[in-house]
């Protein structure tokens, strides 16, 4: 509190430019989550470099920063042990509807072992039969028909889901593989849901 009031003149100066001192934000974040454990702070509040850069540039990074993000994020991509990037579309379809897992806090936490879903339908239209589909991301209906399921399409789709920011720096899409939210196998299943000709994404 004291350090904040001492910092006020500096703050006000920065505010003239429409941006709070980064310190004021971080001080506020640090003391607004007193119930968080050290591990929760580290994994859920502290920022990695990409998060910090995208926040700073409000998701519109200049070209050099964007290039840096793409380069570093490509390095993060890992593949399933069996090397198969096209999994089971039925398993992928299930993951696409699951929006739970990983909630913490005392109000409505998930059990620790609750399966984390991809929640694809929150943001994308996929199979036409699911009317409750969001539009934060593009419609992916029929994407397997357009892209095919050859090795290049499969590999790109896998990489995109694993770490979207390897292609679109500061993308809104979670880096599902990089964060460990989905396993490489689960990502392969999601790839199959998108590209398999038998998947409802590509039928009807």
């Amino acid at each position, binding site marked *: 509190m004291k350090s904040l009031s001492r910092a006020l003149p500096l703050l006000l100066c920065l505010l003239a430019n429409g941006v709070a001192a980064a310190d004021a934000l971080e001080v*506020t974040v640090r003391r607004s989550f007193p119930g968080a*454990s050290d591990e929760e702070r580290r994994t*859920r509040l502290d920022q990695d470099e990409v998060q910090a850069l995208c926040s700073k540039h409000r998701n519109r990074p200049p070209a050099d920063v964007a290039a840096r993000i793409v380069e570093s994020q490509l390095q993060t991509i890992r593949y399933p042990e069996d090397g198969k990037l096209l999994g089971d579309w039925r398993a992928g379809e299930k993951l696409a509807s699951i929006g739970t897992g990983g909630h913490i806090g005392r109000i409505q936490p998930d059990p620790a072992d609750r399966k984390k879903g991809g929640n694809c339908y929150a943001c994308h239209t996929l199979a036409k039969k699911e009317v409750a589909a969001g539009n*934060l991301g593009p419609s992916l209906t029929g994407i397997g028909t357009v892209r095919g399921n050859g090795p290049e399409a499969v590999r790109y789709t896998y990489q995109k889901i694993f770490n979207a920011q390897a292609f679109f720096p500061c993308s809104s899409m979670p880096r599902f593989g990089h964060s460990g939210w989905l396993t490489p196998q689960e990502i392969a299943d999601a790839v199959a849901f998108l590209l398999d000709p038998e998947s409802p994404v590509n039928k009807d």
Partner: protein
Amino acid sequence: MRRIVAAALGLGVACGALGGDQSASEAIAQYRQMLEDGNPAELMELRGEELWTTPRGPRNVTLEQCDLGLGPGVVEGAYARLPRYFADTDRVQDVESRLLTCMTTLQGFAYEDATRAWYKAGSDLEALVTFIATRSKGQPIDTPVKHAKEVEALAVGADFFYRRSGPLDFACATCHSQDDRRIRLQELPNFENPASARTSMTVWPAYRVSQSAVWTMERRLIDCIRQMRYPEPELGSDAIIALQVYLQHQARGGVMQGPGIKR
């Protein structure tokens, strides 16, 4: 009898097919329109008014001398002008935070008692905030950004809005910085766009049919943050208040509609 049940089912399918040309968004619009009349928030408002005017707490006094920013006892229009800076606490406070100041200093409640299970349906805070917000119906949102701490809260709130962290890389801006976006079928306000921000901020607090409860803006934000997979922010914490300063600022001029009704 089997025939009747079968006929019933058959007719159902036929009707479903007949009506099938209503688009998903038209159907949802009809759903919401049919809920507009008869908002259970009115029941919470009644209870909130009773809590406001009934002597309670160790000191057995009402909240009628509580200063919500427009002077002791003035409820009319107070919500539309919150959060704001209060000299007695030397901080920017939202409606919950200010109510808790009054409940502890005027009525003598222990903070733990005043906030126990505040997030559960039927809590005193839910009812009191509903009552107070209803008394701003028809008033334009006009939160002050004059005091240095209000200026600072606005800047911190805006930065927090864009601050990404956690396993899903989410910030508020991830879902709330584009027009005409939805999560599943739920429209997302774009807080970069004042018109959209007004559409949202003027109908909170809102009765949520999925919760059978009125959710205050603070309750709404704390749940967004839960969905972002962050840790749980503390009730009345500076981050949540700063965020509300930013959101209200984006929505300034929007006319409060009174408690809304939502999914």
